[in-house]
């Protein structure tokens, strides 16, 4: 999923991994992955499924402790 990588390119605070789930069964088990894309933020499952850009960013900001709503200006 390209969006995570795009965020990492834009923010020095973000590191983004694209992980081929089938190759790492220990991680699949750790995060209870049953469907993809499955997004983990700072070691916790954040959401499953593709999200539009604004909502994806909202979830990332939420994980960073910054309250926001999709479409809300900073």
């Amino acid at each position, binding site marked *: 999923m390209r969006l995570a990588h795009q965020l990492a390119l834009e923010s020095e605070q973000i590191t983004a991994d694209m*992980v081929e789930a089938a190759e790492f069964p220990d*991680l699949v088990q750790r995060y209870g992955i049953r469907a993809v894309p499955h997004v983990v933020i700072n070691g916790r499952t954040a959401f499953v499924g593709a999200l539009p850009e604004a909502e994806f960013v909202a979830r990332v900001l939420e994980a960073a402790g910054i309250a926001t709503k999709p479409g809300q200006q900073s």
Partner: protein
Amino acid sequence: MLDEPTKARVRERLQALTAPVRLIHFTQELGCETCTDARLLLQDVAKLSERVQLEVYNLQLERAHAAALGIDRVPATVVANGRGARIRFLGLPVGYEFATLLEAILDVSSGHSHLQPETIARLQQIQQPIHLQVYVTPT
């Protein structure tokens, strides 16, 4: 790994590269089913543009280097430029994820994320490290 028609298409896309991109790749000889294919794939890509610079390291021999980049499993590939090494692929990027790899190479070279201005502004609020992992399957 890549057939000739695919090589031709990838070569054409990589002509858009404006600045060098490093592919920092970690691999190992034993106990890794996809490591050989991943290395061969990246070697194919690197041969298609002089701006793609592939570096291959053995995880077992280069643990400190890997740890500095946050890598502890293989195959792992970091797409890096002079400003950062925060875009990574774990596993063999084939199928749709091969397209994602090419997009990452192009974006890292240009330095442009192609995100909406509102998104870029919101990202500036982040003051602490965030680790995103997106789990996918080959298609």
